[in-house]
């Protein structure tokens, strides 16, 4: 195998190694911030499977993030699930919810699909308020109970910043691995084919509904798992994570970093969150600057940062 053939995998390994190395140079506050960024990046990486690769624009992905968040959070809070139990339960519920919603939503396409996913997400958001007795709505719940995991003779304390950082990195790396291997496989090429020309894909003998449903479930489960990880690492669940703002965020991170590139959403999430953090130190009108940045992006770099780099200089980026 030549060096060239190793470039795509190498790029992703280097990206993960850089994230790993950063913990030794960053301050505690920056480390905490990057932990949060990595979890939200994982959420966007899941979103990108559906939007970037399959060409389906969902406006309701916060639903999946919140599903994982609440499935893990509520069971820990009310039923005393241990961390691994809550994790597995959260992932399973995310997969099930994405399967059911995908099955219904994929009967539509285009604008109708956007509206249907948006409506499902609004139902999810309103449910968190309707059951405020249990969820405490916006105020949310702080998870109590054990913050330790005993695993293979090691004892991990989620209260420690370094543990949280590395767990967030581990899950982000796993999500990247899943998406990377998906898009390099024949199945991933079919998703891109559906994005490019669904009619033709059907006439090549592919069941486009089944393929889109797979993409939907993989996407929803990765985004849901990000929600699970968020709840368990930060010990907090609140209904703001189910709001439309979070659905839009996933779209913006993906567009900024480059839809249809594996690393794009990570780059987009990092840049957008850091930008908002820095700007909000100076002005309350920070969203104005974010808006201007997005208009500039749409006008001059419609394919996002990595998408543009791929188009102009590095066509091998997956």
């Amino acid at each position, binding site marked *: 195998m030549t060096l060239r053939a190793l470039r795509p995998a190498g790029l992703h390994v280097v990206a993960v190694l850089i994230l790993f190395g950063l913990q030794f140079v960053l301050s505690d506050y920056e480390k905490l911030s990057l932990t949060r960024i990595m979890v939200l990046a994982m959420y966007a990486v899941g979103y990108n499977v559906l939007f970037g690769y399959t060409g389906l624009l969902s406006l309701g992905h916060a639903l999946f993030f919140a599903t994982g968040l609440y499935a893990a959070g509520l069971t820990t809070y009310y039923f005393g699930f241990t961390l691994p139990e809550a994790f597995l339960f959260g992932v399973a519920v995310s997969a099930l919810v994405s399967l059911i919603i995908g099955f219904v939503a994929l009967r539509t396409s285009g604008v109708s699909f956007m509206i249907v996913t948006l409506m499902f997400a609004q139902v999810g958001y309103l449910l968190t308020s309707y059951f405020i007795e249990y969820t405490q709505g916006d105020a949310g719940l702080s998870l109590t109970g054990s913050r330790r995991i005993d695993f293979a003779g090691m004892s991990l304390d989620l209260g420690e910043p370094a543990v949280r950082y590395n767990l967030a990195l581990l899950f982000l790396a796993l999500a990247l691995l899943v998406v990377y291997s998906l898009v390099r496989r024949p199945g991933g090429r079919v998703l891109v084919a559906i994005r*490019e020309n669904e009619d033709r894909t059907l006439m090549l003998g592919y069941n486009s509904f089944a393929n889109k449903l797979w993409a939907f479930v993989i996407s929803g489960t990765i985004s849901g798992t990000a929600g699970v990880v968020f709840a368990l690492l930060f010990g907090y669940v609140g209904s703001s994570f189910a709001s439309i703002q979070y659905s839009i965020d996933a779209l913006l991170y993906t567009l900024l970093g480059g839809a249809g590139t594996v690393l794009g959403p990570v780059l987009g999430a990092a840049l957008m969150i850091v930008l908002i953090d820095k700007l909000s130190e100076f002005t309350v009108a920070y969203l104005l600057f974010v808006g201007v940045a997005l208009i500039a992006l749409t006008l001059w770099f419609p394919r996002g940062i990595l998408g543009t780099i791929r188009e102009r200089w590095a066509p091998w980026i997956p």
Partner: protein
Amino acid sequence: MDSVTCFEEVDTSRPGRLQHIERSAAGSGPHLADRPLLLETSGLERHFGGLNAVDGVDFALREGEVRAIIGPNGAGKTTFVSLLCGRLTPSAGSIQFRGEDVTRLPAYRRVGRGIAYTFQITNVFGNLSVFDNVMLAAQSCMRRRGGFFARIDRAELECRVTAALSAVGLDSRAALKTGELAYGHQRLLEVAMGLALEPSLLILDEPTQGLSDSEIDEFCTLIKRIAANATILLIEHNMHVVMQLASRITVMNRGKILAEGDPEEIRCNPEVQAAYLAA
């Protein structure tokens, strides 16, 4: 030439292909009427509002034929083949393929049964490379039995793609972005995609439309080669192409079959002359 050999090797893995390969060109081998039926429609209808685009068509196609469907604009030719490949559902009637009723099967399943359709208006993946376009077709053919997570042998896949591309003479352009291909080459790519599906019935909808005379000649040579391995159903306006390729011709007019026969019979048929050839 190596890659063409490889294509035939791949072919032999499919049951029922060997006897086709041994036949050198369409029209030779056993007499047409003795060959088994591949496709049959009875009372096939498709209405669009008050318009009967296809109006009670009884049609039969035997294995190994090169059948041309001709007829004036609006005769219902494209609607008819769209019903055959499943892009449209019929209002009434039935379609049998190899003795199986496929009337209600979705299009993608019919492709799995061996019916491939190439579009009248070039319909390829413009943003993907030429190689990737054909790879999607070859991959579909290879995983008919496997499902979404089927393991696909990369070397065999690439071999099939290269074979299909060299069959139409596009192998030197494999790495190009499809949108940058000349129109004639995009038409050839359509055919390569059809070939990579290894269909038992290849439906070509006006394949020579927009091609230059020299391209049309090359195209006819290509179709003759393909006809050795597959049954071909061809919608075509260019009578020179039809007369050169077709073993039988079906003439459609106003959604019905007006006449059917070998090229000589059709040429002499007064009804056909009145409806179509007179001009």
